C-alpha cells in the first residue's frame, strides 16, 4: 500500500494482527450453527454464541483503525475497494451484533435466524476479503491478509 506520511505504523501492525481473527471466529460460528440446526446438540449452540461474542470483541479495535484510516488519515489515498471493504465489514458487524442477541435465546429458538445471520456475516466478510485480495493483485502487491 502507499503509506501516507502521517499514517501510523503501529496502527497498521495492530490492524494486521487483529483484523483476520473475527472472520475465523464468524466462519467457525457458522459451522457450529449449521451443525446445531442439524443435530440439536446444545454444545454447538453454546459454542457458536461464544464465538460470535469473541469475534465481535476482537473486531472492535481493527474496525476503529479501519474507520480512521479509510475516512480520515488516509482518505486521500483510499481507493474504491477500501471504501467497499469498510462498508462490507460494517454490515457484517451489524449482522453479527443482531446474531449475538439471537444466540442469547434458549435452545432451538436460535434456529433458523441464527444460521441466516451467521451466513450473512460470513458472506459479507468473504466478499470484503476477495475485494481486497483482487485489489492487491491488480496493483501487483502481495496478498497479506
Amino acid at each position, binding site marked *: 500500500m502507499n503509506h501516507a506520511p502521517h499514517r501510523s505504523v503501529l496502527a497498521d501492525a495492530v490492524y494486521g494482527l487483529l483484523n483476520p481473527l473475527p472472520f475465523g471466529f464468524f466462519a467457525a460460528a457458522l459451522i457450529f450453527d449449521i451443525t446445531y440446526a442439524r443435530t*440439536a*446438540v*446444545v*454444545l454447538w*449452540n*453454546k459454542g457458536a*454464541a*461464544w464465538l460470535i*461474542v469473541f469475534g465481535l470483541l476482537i473486531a472492535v479495535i481493527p474496525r476503529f483503525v479501519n474507520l480512521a484510516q479509510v475516512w480520515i488519515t488516509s482518505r486521500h489515498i483510499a481507493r474504491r475497494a477500501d*471504501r467497499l471493504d469498510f*462498508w462490507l465489514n*460494517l*454490515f457484517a458487524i*451489524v449482522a453479527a*451484533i*443482531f446474531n*449475538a*442477541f*439471537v*444466540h*442469547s*435465546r*434458549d*435452545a*432451538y*429458538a436460535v*434456529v433458523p*435466524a441464527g444460521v441466516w445471520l451467521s451466513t450473512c456475516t460470513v458472506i459479507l466478510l468473504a466478499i470484503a476479503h476477495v475485494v481486497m485480495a483482487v485489489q492487491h493483485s491488480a496493483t501487483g502487491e502481495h496478498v497479506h491478509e
Partner: protein
Amino acid sequence: MNKIVLHIALALAFGMILGGCSGKASYQPAQQSGDAPPLPTARNFLVPPMQVPRYAGWKQGQMPKVAPGLRIEKIASGLIHPRQLYTLPNGDILVVESNGPGAEPVTTPKQLIANKIKNLSGKGAKGGNRITLLRHDGNAGGEWEKHVFIEHLHSPFGVALIGDTLYVANTDAIVKFPYVAGETQITAPGVEFTDLPATINHHWTKALAASADGSKLYVGVGSNSNIIENGIDQEYRRAAVLEVDVASASSRIYASGLRNPTGLQIEPHTGKLWAIVNERDEIGADLVPDYLTSVQQGGFYGWPYSYFGQHVDSRVMPQRPDLVAKAIKPDYALGSHVAALGLLFSDTNALPEKYQHGAFVGEHGSWDRSPLSGYAVVHVAFVNGKPTGVPEPLVTGFHSDDETQLYGAPVGLAQDKDGALLIADDVGDTVWRVTAASP
C-alpha cells in the same frame, strides 16, 4: 452519500433493537387465571421482556400492605434469606434460611449479563444454610423468640416431620434429624436419607411433603434449564415430583413434565397431592402462566414439549408429539410470571370468612415480565376440592408504586397455632404474620 447510508443503517439497527425489546404484558394476572387462561401466540425476542426492581429492603416501621379487614405484624427480622416456613405440632415455627448453591457453571455469554441484572433485586443474596426456630413468648405483639435450630445445611428448602424424625431436603439429598418436641436446637448430625438430583441445579429448590400416613415423601425437583438449553440429558429425574418410600428410602418418578414444582401440599378434603409450578420464560410477558395443580400419579404435565395441555413449544428439538398428546392441562392458572413459590391449604384460620376453605399462594415475582406481576400473597378459593374464581391478593406492597424499588418478596407460607398466616420474605429477611384486623 456514504453518510446517508450510515445514517440509514444506524436507524435501521436502532429500530430493530427497540422492536426486539418491546413486549409489555397486555393481561392482568387475574385475567390469565383459572382453568382456561387466554394464551397469546408465543414470540422469540432479541431481548426478552425484562424488569427488575432494585433492592431497597424495608425501612424502619415500613410494612407490606394488607387487604381491608386484615392486620400485619413483623414476628422475626434479621434472618438470612428466609425461604420456607414449617409449623411444628407444638406451635414452634421453623424458618428455612437458604438460597441456591451458586454452583451452576457459566456456559453461555448470556448468563454473565443476565445473572448480574437478576441479582439487582436482592433475590440472589446468599442464604443462611440453616433453620431457625421461632417461638411465641406468650406476650402479644413484638418479635418472637429466635433460636438457631439446625446449622450447616446445603441449600435446604423442604422440611417435613414424620413422627420424631425431621426430614430436610437439601439441594443434593434428603437428610434426617431426630426431633424432640420442645427442643430449640438439634445438635445431632444429620444422616443422609436419600440422594436427590444435584447436577447444575439451575432450579435448586427441593420441595418436600409427607403423605398423610407418613409412609411416603414427595419431592419437587425443578428442571435444569428454562427450556432444555442445557441438553435433554441434563433433565433426568428433573421437572418431576419424586415419591420416596420412607421405609426403604427408594424413590420413583411420581409425576413429570412439571417445570419447577414447589409448595407440595396435601389438599385436606380430597387427600390429593397439589403443587405450584413455575412455567417457562422468554416467549412473552403473557406466557406462560404459572399454575396450581393437583398432581396425578404417573401424570405428565407438558414440560418441555408443551404448555397448558397441547401448546407446543417450538424451542424444543426433537419434538415429541406422543408426549404432547398425553400432556395433562393443569387445574388452575395463577397468571404469567407471578413465580409462585409458597403454597398453604387452609380450611379454617383466624382470617375473615372469605379466606377460609382454600389455598394461599406466595408469589415471589419474576424478572421476565413488564409491568411486574406477583410480589403478593393471594388466596384461591376452593369448592369441593377444586379451585374457583380469581386469585384474591391479600398482602401486597412489596415493591414501590413505580415498580423501581423492591422492599421484600413473599415466598413460603405457614399457619401458626392461632390460625394466623405467616409469610417468609426472603428479600426483606423478615417473617410477617397476618391476622384479622378485629378478632
